[in-house]
């Protein structure tokens, strides 16, 4: 049997990779993908915890997360499309009208 610890470690590694992606990449699309990775890391932790806690709450939570992630990605991509129409770029660092 695989102990819960291993699942959590895998999930945290995926989380760390996602966070690194958000910091590293300037392409908004890849940033989104990294965000998806973080959400998936949480899903994995939820489902594993659900199995080891003996209730289904975590799985249902993960199910909702997937739904939310889908909605979020759609909105994010729409914003990118709108931005691209204006500026012909998807680089986060090109968003310079506003000061950071």
């Amino acid at each position: 049997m695989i102990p819960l610890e291993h699942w959590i470690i895998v999930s945290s590694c995926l989380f760390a990779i996602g966070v690194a992606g958000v910091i590293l990449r300037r392409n908004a699309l890849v940033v989104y993908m990294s965000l998806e990775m973080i959400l998936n890391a949480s899903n994995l932790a939820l489902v594993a915890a659900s199995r080891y806690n003996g209730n289904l709450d975590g799985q249902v939570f993960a199910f909702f997360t997937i739904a939310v992630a889908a909605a979020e990605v759609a909105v994010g991509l729409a914003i990118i499309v709108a931005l691209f129409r204006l500026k012909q770029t998807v680089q986060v660092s090109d968003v310079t009208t506003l000061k950071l």
Partner: protein
Amino acid sequence: MNSSNILHVLNLLTPEIVLCGLAFGVLLLDIIFFRSDSVEHRHEQLGCSVIIGLVMVFFIYALQYMDWQNTFVVGHGAFVASRLNTLFKMAVVGLALITVVIGFKTPYSTHVGEYYGLMLFSVLGMVFLISSEDLLMIFIALELISLTLYVLTAFQKGARRSVEGGLKYFIFGGFSAAFLLFGLSYIYGATGHTSLREIAGALQGDQLAKVPMKMLGIGILFTLVGLGFKIAAAPFHLWAPDAYEGAPTPVAAMIATGSKIASFVALTKLLLIGLPAAAGSALSWPTRWHSGWAGTVAIIAVLSMTIGNFAAIMQTNVKRLLAYSSVAHAGYILVAIVAIQASGVPAPSAAPAIYFYIIIYALTNIGAFGVVNAIGSKAGGDDFEHFTGMARRSPYLSLLMLIFMLSLAGIPPLAGFFGKFYLFAAAVQADPKNLGLLWLVAYAIAMSAVSLYYYLKLTKQMYVLPAKDPRRVTSNPAMNTSLGLIGLMVLLMGVFPNKVVERFENLNANPYPIWEAAVPPPPQPEIPVPAPAEKPAVPAPAAPAPKS
């Protein structure tokens, strides 16, 4: 769930259902009847219907508020109907109403129906967030608010600022949501529950030993980061100035007020109901500092007050100024959140003080945004230079802005002063014998002395400098009236705060019976939980080192 049960749940949810129907109605009305009208016309007609609908919802909430003596719990805390929650929902709906009024004559887009529809969906999200005591529901409601606000921020598709503000808001918001979710998954992993009361139960007494505290600590930390983004606390505030500046002003007002109220209520509930056992202590560093969320929140509070106030000094755009000032105000509120559980037992005034302050804060800010919208749309922008000499061009709006700024700075007799006094008094009250939190309160008071500088800088533009453009600036009567009412309320709540305070203290302290699964009060409750409405009955002991 039997049928009478479902009917009762529907009864509880009436205002939310009406609100939902209103959103659909606005969308359909626009598509079916007004498609061919001019934008202004559609804006007026739909705006009026939204206002009427929101007033209706407001009154349903008011009826519920007067009617209820009990707290009803639906679905293990997914929806908790209590008087306190209803009060906040009234506040949120009222703020939405004002938002619609202040944006009334300034259409930002040709998609009028969708504009109002999304706004109403956002309000729905806030309403559900306020009444949720369940991690899952908190997450979904937060996302509903965020997604609609991302879209609304980028709603002026032709304007670069708007879309870029939207993108920045989205990326930071998405990142924060991911953090929040990761934190929630750890909290669930550590305790095995999603309902806040069940989590609190899992952390009580001898149960505590079974909980992996380090994992819980990580979960709480990441959750705080996620919610910190939502309430724009430093260092998670970077999106706020851009989103405020880029978004259409009514949307910025909504981000700054309604969504703030809802997020603060959620944060307070999460920490107060779900995790009081993991509070630790932030008293008199370093001797009485125990690790727990109290210490983390204290650090976030200090950072927010410092960064918010000092960055605000440098701003030359009114909306950015308001954004940084809201960062600072989040810091003040967090001071009281630290105090909630500072010495192991709940400070009696802390939660009411937080509630009072966020209401005051939201009211003042929506007023300020209203003035910014009224002046900005006529003067051509919302930089400081557009406000120069406004006292001559528009004495009424300038006077209101003066009131709002001084209230934010905490000058009596305006509401902001008493709000701050209440917050800080509550924080000191957490450990009255040793004045353990006085260090934090003293810092907050010092920072609020700094804040007067930039609020006065803005009013200087309006009152002291001469106008370059002598033409008068006027706004429509509806806007004038509603802004005037807000100004009056800010004044009255500062001069006579006792009634409001009394109400909050009662709502917070009086343990209304809680009825699981929503049964009408007289018959037997299914699972009566012996806890008071807003805090656990048994003061949980301070947790030993919940996180590394």
